[in-house]
């Protein structure tokens, strides 16, 4: 702490996967944070996790004040997340203040009153457990029970001030009438307005999409915007991109090169791929993207390494059959334990759940290579921004573990003539290597052409080469002269063409 007014607000990490990253450390310490959301937006899960992870990760006891759901229900629902609340209660590390009792609902009010009883009980529970964290869930029930909203607001203010005096950090949940109106239903915000987190569960493009936004932290920095999250039955709340980013160690870059599975491509890329590279192979359907991906996977197995294939386009059986057609026995690779195929159409789960599934597979299987075929299929169920988040997030995790990754993308929707959609352009900007497959017209014939548009840190081949596909796979041939360079839409050309490329391809003048 400094005396010049630039005091850094002390933070209490929640332990919620990814949240502390967005909150730049956690919730403001010894203050109340309002977590508001519509019914089913995950407020209670957030509240439960704040306390439970406090006990699990930081050995900080907690008090749960419930106005709505009875403690028995909370204990039961939390068991699936692996939180043994009952045991913690026995150990004196978790205490409920049960204000859900219907008895009190029926008590009529005659004359003036305050919440002295509640304040005394909360204080008692905090002292008894030595709590550092307190949850009040949720205020809506209180407003339903006590007719005078002004009294309830005043009394809640006193309670939050009391909590600050006790030195505990608290999470207070409240209902919102709609996803994008006001902060809360009952005008609760004035008294805890310092720190506000909004949980949303909105319908977007016909799918439920959960997001979390830190609306304000008084005097404390935080990341802005809506962050996608999911509520996993086993892991609880997971903010997807930050959860991956948090895994990033940054800075380190591999100097080890590995083969793409095609000698010609390796040569074009400057002698193979860096072990921690993320490679994008783009091109229209039928150009050989999946073939390239399968060769990439097979190379891992041939050198005794593991590869994980996530396919969103085909079933596992279809993929095995196609591979068989190219002389690749994926079944044998699976049997040897060096290959795992995860398949599933994008529509069967939310994009966030796909992220989690891939992450879990990576953790369990510990592959040295990963294939995602095709990334474009996810575009059907996810916004462009979310797809980019996915790639950024995945990339951070993959670079940390030095998992060589091959992503494929096909044009969807409004593709520009070269077969590169806007989102592919964006993803290409994030990839270390971008290999583009396309048709090139030459002497009235459509030829298959391959170009390495980018290979970070490598002196790569900038020429457009013809290639053919036969039973033996992709064969890279001679440069195609006289073929115009790829139209890359209106993207920043410097993102596409490394300076060396421009120097080589375009003579000065």
């Amino acid at each position, binding site marked *: 702490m400094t005396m010049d007014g630039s005091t850094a607000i002390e933070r209490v990490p929640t332990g919620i996967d990814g949240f502390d990253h967005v909150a730049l450390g956690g919730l403001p310490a010894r203050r109340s944070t309002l977590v508001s959301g519509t019914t089913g937006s995950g407020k209670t899960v957030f509240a439960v996790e704040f306390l439970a992870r406090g006990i699990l990760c930081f050995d900080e006891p907690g008090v749960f004040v419930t106005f709505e759901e009875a403690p028995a229900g909370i204990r039961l629902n939390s068991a699936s997340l692996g939180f043994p609340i009952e045991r913690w209660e026995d150990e004196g590390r978790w205490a409920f203040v049960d204000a859900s*009792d219907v008895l*009190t609902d029926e008590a*009529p009010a005659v004359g003036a*009153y305050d919440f*002295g*009883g509640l304040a005394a009980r909360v204080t008692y529970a905090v002292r008894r457990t030595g709590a550092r964290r307190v949850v009040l869930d949720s205020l809506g029930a209180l407003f339903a029970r006590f007719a005078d909203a002004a009294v309830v607001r005043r009394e809640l203010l006193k309670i939050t001030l009391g909590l600050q005096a006790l030195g505990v950090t608290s999470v207070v949940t409240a209902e919102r009438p709609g996803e994008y109106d006001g902060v809360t239903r009952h005008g609760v915000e004035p008294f805890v307005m310092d720190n506000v987190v909004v949980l949303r569960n909105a319908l977007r493009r016909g799918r439920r999409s959960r997001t979390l936004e830190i609306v304000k932290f008084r005097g404390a920095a935080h990341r802005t915007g809506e962050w996608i999250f999911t509520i996993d039955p086993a892991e609880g709340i997971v903010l997807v991109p930050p959860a991956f980013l948090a895994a990033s160690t940054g800075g380190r870059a591999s100097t080890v090169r590995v083969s793409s599975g095609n000698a010609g491509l390796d040569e074009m890329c400057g002698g193979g791929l860096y072990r921690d590279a993320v490679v994008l192979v783009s091109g229209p359907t039928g150009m050989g993207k999946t073939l390239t991906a399968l060769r990439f996977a097979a190379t891992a197995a041939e050198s005794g390494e593991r590869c994980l294939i996530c396919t969103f386009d085909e079933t596992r059986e279809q993929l095995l059959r196609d591979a068989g057609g190219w002389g690749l026995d994926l079944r044998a690779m699976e049997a040897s334990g060096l290959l795992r195929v995860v398949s599933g159409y994008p529509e069967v789960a939310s994009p966030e759940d796909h992220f989690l599934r891939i992450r879990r597979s990576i953790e369990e299987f510990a592959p040295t290579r990963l294939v995602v075929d095709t990334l474009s299929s996810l575009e059907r169920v996810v916004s462009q921004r979310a797809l980019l988040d996915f790639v950024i997030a995945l990339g951070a995790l993959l670079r940390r573990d030095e998992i060589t990754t091959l992503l494929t993308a096909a044009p969807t929707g409004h593709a520009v003539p070269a077969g590169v959609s806007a989102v592919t352009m964006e993803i290409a900007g994030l990839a270390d290597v971008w290999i583009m497959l396309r048709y090139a017209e030459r002497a009235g014939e459509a030829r298959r052409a391959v170009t390495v548009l980018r290979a970070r840190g490598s002196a790569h081949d900038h020429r457009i080469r013809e290639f053919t596909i036969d039973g033996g796979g992709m064969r890279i041939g001679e440069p195609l002269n006289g073929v115009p360079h790829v139209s890359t839409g209106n993207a920043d050309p410097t993102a596409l063409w490394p300076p060396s490329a421009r120097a080589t391809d375009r003579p000065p003048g």
Partner: protein
Amino acid sequence: MTTYSFRLYVAGTTERSKAAEANLRFLCDERLAGACEVEVVDVAERPDLAEEGRVLATPTVVRLAPPPVLRVVGDLSDHGRAAAALGLPAAPGPPEERL
């Protein structure tokens, strides 16, 4: 005559606490001719009893006997409504003067 038994939960010795106790004792004298027991619990001193009684608002008065158990929240400043809510017998004399 039935003896009434009440427990009054208050938070500290505030004006509101004193008013609630005075109003309850007044009702006991007026409606029950003193045939009643009043136990005052200060939740600040006995938070365990507040917890046990699931007390949220203070003052809260609980009629423990005779059954049924009844609860009323507030300082009972409106004697007529308080008496009705606590199920006390009618006051002697014309009711309009008391309301």
